[in-house]
């Protein structure tokens, strides 16, 4: 039995005790219980005494020693009545002897958090907030320090949680330590909440599509360097048909001057795929042989005349 189940059973036991007390008060209000007499006493209030680990252990042993049927409600009430008389007035600590132990060994539990009579809320004692130790340590009576070790004590090993101490969680621990553990809960399949409402889609309806092969529409892309992250588009290839119409389209790539000489027609941009004859060709007008530029020499008389003749002409005009 793990700690959670123990606590649950203890809470159940205390709840039944309170319920029994409430029923007794309702049945005979003229005869107050000894516990209430103790509460109405004039003795100064005793300080709150927290249950010791031994008392918690006693309670745990009380629950654990036998089945819940072995400890009947009457027995519990009788034991509490007897003990309440021996407890000093206004004391918040009750000693409940264990069924398996002798009456001289009190088992203490705190009633300081009992709910008031006007309240219907049943509240269990704060046993959950108590430091819980491993059963083996508790049984051995060893006391493990609860306080956080000082920082100069060095690196401490983190204590195992209750979930890992649970035998059922051992399987998870084994899975966690296995190399195939991925941090995702191992389930056999999605739950109903995860699935939600599944809608089955009807099969697609519509006309059938036929796609041409890509190799028929575009020339193969050039080889891409491995170091490039993205493939660059291939260089555009201008197409020049031959001079006679109806001839095959001749490609003009970089440096294709000979192709340009043989054809005068260009298509731009190349929107038509190369699947045969072009639907529309804009032809460039032919260029006839003509002199585009005319050069004139500086003067035809320069080579024939000497510098001396020019000098004489420049000097002697007025003087002649």
């Amino acid at each position: 039995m793990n700690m959670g189940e123990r606590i649950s059973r203890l809470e159940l036991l205390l709840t039944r005790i309170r319920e029994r007390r409430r029923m007794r008060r309702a049945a005979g209000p003229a005869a107050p219980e000894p516990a209430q007499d103790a509460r109405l006493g004039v003795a100064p209030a005793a300080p709150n005494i927290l249950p010791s680990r031994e008392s918690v252990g006693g309670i745990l042993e009380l629950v654990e020693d036998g089945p819940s049927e072995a400890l009947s409600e009457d027995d519990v009430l009788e034991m509490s009545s007897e003990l309440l008389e021996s407890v000093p007035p206004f004391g918040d600590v009750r000693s409940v002897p264990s069924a398996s132990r002798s009456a001289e060994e009190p088992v203490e539990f705190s009633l300081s958090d009992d709910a008031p009579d006007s309240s219907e809320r049943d509240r269990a004692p704060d046993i959950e907030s108590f430091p819980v130790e491993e059963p083996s340590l508790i049984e051995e009576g060893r006391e493990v320090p609860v306080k956080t070790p000082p920082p100069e004590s060095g690196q401490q090993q983190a204590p195992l949680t209750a979930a890992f101490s649970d035998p059922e969680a051992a399987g998870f621990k084994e899975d966690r330590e296995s190399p195939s553990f991925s941090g995702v809960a191992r389930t056999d399949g999605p739950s109903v909440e995860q699935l939600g409402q599944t809608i089955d889609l009807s099969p697609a309806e519509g006309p059938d599509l036929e796609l041409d092969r890509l190799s028929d529409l575009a020339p193969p892309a050039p080889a891409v360097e491995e170091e490039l992250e993205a493939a660059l588009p291939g260089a555009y290839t201008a197409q020049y048909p031959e001079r006679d119409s109806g001839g095959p389209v001749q490609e003009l790539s970089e440096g294709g001057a000979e192709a340009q000489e043989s054809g005068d027609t260009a298509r731009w941009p190349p929107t038509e795929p190369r699947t045969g004859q072009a639907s529309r060709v804009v032809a460039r007008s032919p260029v006839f042989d003509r002199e585009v530029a005319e050069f004139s020499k500086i003067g035809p008389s320069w080579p024939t005349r000497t510098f001396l003749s020019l000098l004489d002409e420049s000097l002697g005009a007025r003087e002649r």
Partner: protein
Amino acid sequence: MAMPFDPSRSVAFDLNRGQITLKGGAERVLVPSDALLALCTGSGREESTDFGRRLGTEAGRRAAERLGDIRSATPEEVVEHLGAELALAGLGSLSLEQWGRSLVFMVTGSPFGAAGDELLASVLQGALQRAFARDADVVRLERDDRRARFLITNHSGAEQVRGWISQGTAWGEALARLDSGRGAS
């Protein structure tokens, strides 16, 4: 036909003796251009013109020696050899233009600038006198930051052009007037 100008070993620096000589010429002196210009401008106009003519006479002589037959020398050959002499002297780059019947020398990159144009004119005058045995008058027509144009004409024509330019006539118009006057005569 004259041989093309060969500038190889045209200038010899004898550092042991501390002398600079031109091939086929007398000893030279490397002086700062501004110091030489200051000396020319500081002296009188006649002294400066004589100094320039002496420089041109030396250049014309050396050019005529390489040209050979002066009478058959083409304008290109004259520009090449006479311009080479001016270049060796560090006076700039020479070229030749013909505007109508007038010959115009153009000097580019003269170290003296506008202040040394009169010196350059006297250099050209001395070169033409020595090489071609012609008494020519050289008139500066115009100049900008890099080049200057010099008209080769006779004395009367030079006086007319100087008068027109001083009156604000453009140098092209002055050349046109000079050419039309030659035609009328």
